[in-house]
């Protein structure tokens, strides 16, 4: 029997606010343990939370960008459980009344067609701290710097049909978060985290199988691999007629397997109830309008604009807008060099190849848009050849030097001077009389040999078009 997976994702995104969600402490990553804390985020007796309005604003941004409905009144609720990284013994989250519900996200499906993944809800909550286990002694230490860092949880409907789609959805969410400038989207550092719900059902049927919750997948690759493993595991179970247990499983990236964490019967009862310390949050149309008016251009809109304004192929527009930083790079380059297609070609081929090879993100690209534009100007005006331009680019990428300085230093300016090239041609012809007569006898293919010889004489700087013209004229003359 054929099975199809039914996948839903719960994405936690750390918001890039300056201060924490309920106190004034810094949200900066990586301070020494417990230095970004105060009585409030330490959960001291008697303290009270005060909501950081910026968190609501950021969440409204995400809700608008994902076409959600924003509740005029939402509430914070307490999620009660004991753990040493949770100083109050409860996490302030949202439960019955989240800020946003019922949105969607457009992604590229497995077959290349566009797919719409529905978003169930987006809510605000506080992050927990971190435990550091002593490797040698039976102790654990608690670092509460992360406690109270604002998070949003984006819960999708189970609309995702494959691990590839899951990764694609996750990427799309990350891109929107980055476009909105509300989250770093760094899965390795934990500023974006992803849990999945997955079940299998016979292909083409509408039912839902027993779902398993998958946690601990801290990269795009691991999300995909974890889901792939879980599909294989559940398939084998079904084929062996063994029941699938509703449980939470952890992805073990070292062993490439998922392992059971806890069953449903051991599941926590979080005893949610409205937090009496925080008033309901009211979001009126004026506030929504204000946030909407300040929204940056989102990937979809940008893509369309690149096609219409710059006359780029859809494919180019898609690649260039796949990250906000890349789109920014492209448009910055365009200011200095107004030939969109040529610039796009260079970004998509040379630049992205070099970035991939050096495992760098566009943000860390050693060649600035201005530098690339300068190189392309040199190429476009015939000062250097295409071949030399590629070599210059590699040099720019590794040394960080500008195109002009490399060209000057190495004397790479293309020779277009008619007489200079003519004298080189004459020299080559006189040095190779045998080949000249063979060519004249009809061996046309030798033209390549002559071009090569002339280029060697000019150290590659001769304008190849002019070399060709002069050679043909002289050899045929």
């Amino acid at each position, binding site marked *: 029997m054929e099975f199809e997976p039914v996948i839903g994702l719960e994405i936690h995104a750390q918001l890039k606010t300056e201060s924490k969600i309920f106190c004034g402490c810094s949200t900066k990553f990586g301070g020494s343990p417990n230095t970004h804390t105060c*009585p409030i985020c*330490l*959960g*001291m*007796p*008697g*303290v*009270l*939370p*005060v*909501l950081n309005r910026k968190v609501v604003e950021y969440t409204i941004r995400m809700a608008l960008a994902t076409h959600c409905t924003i509740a005029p009144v939402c509430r914070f609720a*307490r999620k*009660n459980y*004991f753990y*040493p990284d949770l*100083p*109050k*013994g*409860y996490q302030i989250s949202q439960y019955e009344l989240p800020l946003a519900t019922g949105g969607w996200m457009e992604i590229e499906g497995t077959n290349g067609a566009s797919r719409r993944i529905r978003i169930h809800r987006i809510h605000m909550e506080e992050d927990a701290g971190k435990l550091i286990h002593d490797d040698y002694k039976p102790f654990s230490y*608690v670092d509460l710097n992360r406690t109270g860092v604002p998070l949003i949880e984006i819960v999708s409907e189970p609309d995702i049909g494959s691990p590839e789609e899951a990764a694609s959805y996750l990427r799309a969410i990350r891109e929107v978060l980055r476009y909105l400038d509300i989250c770093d989207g760094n899965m390795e550092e934990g500023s974006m985290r992803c849990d999945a719900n997955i079940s299998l059902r016979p292909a083409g049927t509408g039912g839902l199988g027993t779902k398993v919750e998958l946690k601990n997948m801290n990269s795009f690759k691991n999300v995909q691999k974890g889901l792939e493993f879980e599909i294989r595991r559940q398939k084998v179970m079904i084929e062996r007629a063994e029941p699938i247990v509703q449980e939470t499983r952890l992805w073990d990236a070292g062993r490439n397997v998922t392992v059971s964490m806890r069953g449903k019967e051991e599941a926590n*009862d979080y*005893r*949610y*109830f409205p937090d*009496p*310390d*925080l*008033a309901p949050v009211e979001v009126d149309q004026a506030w929504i309008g204000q946030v909407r008016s300040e929204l940056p251009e989102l990937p979809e809109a940008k893509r369309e604009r690149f096609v219409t304004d710059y006359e780029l192929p859809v494919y180019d527009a898609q690649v260039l807008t796949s990250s906000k930083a890349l789109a920014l790079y492209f448009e910055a380059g365009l200011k200095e060099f107004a030939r969109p297609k040529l610039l796009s070609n260079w970004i998509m081929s040379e630049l992205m190849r070099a970035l991939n090879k050096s495992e760098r993100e566009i943000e860390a690209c050693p060649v600035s848009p201005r530098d690339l534009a300068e190189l392309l100007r040199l190429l476009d005006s015939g000062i250097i050849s295409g071949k030399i331009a590629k070599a210059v680019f590699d040099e720019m990428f590794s040394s960080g030097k500008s195109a002009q300085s490399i060209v000057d230093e190495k004397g790479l300016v293309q020779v277009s001077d008619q007489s200079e090239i003519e004298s080189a041609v004459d020299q080559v012809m006189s040095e190779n009389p045998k080949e000249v007569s063979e060519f004249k006898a009809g061996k046309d293919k030798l033209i390549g040999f002559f071009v090569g010889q002339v280029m060697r004489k000019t150290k590659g700087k001769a304008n190849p078009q002019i070399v060709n013209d002069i050679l043909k004229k002289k050899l045929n003359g």
Partner: protein
Amino acid sequence: MDIHSLPMHRIHDLLESRQIGAVETVLAFLERISSIDPEVNAYLATFGEKATEEAKLFDSGARQFSASPIAGTPIAIKDVICMRGTSTTCGSRILQGFVSPYDATVTEKLRRAGSIFLGKTNLDEFAMGSSTENSAYLKTRNPWDIGRVPGGSSGGSAAAVAAGLCAGALGTDTGGSIRQPSSFCGVVGLKPTYGRVSRFGLVAFASSLDQIGPITRDVEDAALLLQAIAGYDPADSTSVDLPVPDYRAGLKQPIEGLRLGIPRQYFIEGTHPEVEKAVREAIATCKNLGATIVDISLPHTEYGIAAYYIIAPAEASSNLARYDGVKYGHRAQNSADLMDMYRKSRSEGFGSEVKRRIMLGTYVLSAGYYEAYYKKASQVRTLIGRDFLEAFEKCDAIVAPVSPIPAFRLGEKSEDPLQMYLSDVFTLPASLAGIPGISVPCGFTSENLPIGLQILGPHFREDLVLRIANQFEQATDFHLKNPEVKGGGKCK
């Protein structure tokens, strides 16, 4: 002249006119504490040295008595309110040794107003109780009868004021914890409107009900102490941004023409006959002062206890989760693992009433029970609130007993929690509705036990409640009577 039997405003007058010194005043109270408090057990901690240092600043002129109408007067704070650098135990073993790293908003405000803190007073553990017998450290006794409880949970503060162990005190009220002990101890206790006084730094019992308020020797002091602590606090999202009136200025206004509502549900069988008699006489006094008496109904009164004992424990079960032995307070030794450490620390740290309420609260919030209990109780709470709103269309304020009974004997109800809960029947509804209420002395039983009159007003009408209480107080002399506590022989 006995300084300890004077209200704060009188002491302040004497201080300001240099008839007495601030150090002299503090020492008088400290001396009385050392002689009387071993009998009363009102204090968990005293700050004699610090208080004397503070007082010196006033005497030397470094601090001014003009800072506020209570500047330089020594007061006591219920040990559930945080004060930087001092221990805050909440009457619980689980917070033994915990020193607060910050000031509560009220503490900070009182510092600015020039209060001198004598010490922290005893209470039922985490303010859960009506007798101050649930403290892990001491059983506070009623200064009017050492064999009886002072009421609770602010029993330490009420007893301290009654016995002249401080000029005034702060208590907290969640379901009657200011009003009931004030009535048992024959002093004035005001529970402000929910949101009138910042809760920041008040260790939470039930967050949607807790309020800090004054416990004093007379109504004018209650007005002055409330003035010093009231007002919006950006650190407390549930505090309300409304202007605070001049409470003392309003006290003198007569109550002629005011309509006072008498809720028939507050005069029930089981109320002590002498309590009922005293309250009826108090109503007659108000009538003589020109008030109109109207019969009103608060139909959902009888559901108050049930709703309260679901909502308050539910919130408490969550509020008390932070006492887990990880960060501060008591941690059990020799635990096998994390779960064992949690279990042992909390079993050893909490007393039985606190455990009872944590279990109750955990149960009513559990999946499958939430709707039937917590949700339902919240709906009942809304109905009780509506009762008052409708009543205040017919009357300006409500007059009733504080408690159906006067102070009971130590141990009398501690074995029967339900009997204990029932003694809060007249104070719980106002807490659930969030309206202000005061207890003002209105008589004594034949056994010389004080009886309190409860006056309730609409939200943020502390001014009205205080005015009625003041007019009643000025027409009577119950507040002038003092208990005779025999201490180490130095005082009367």
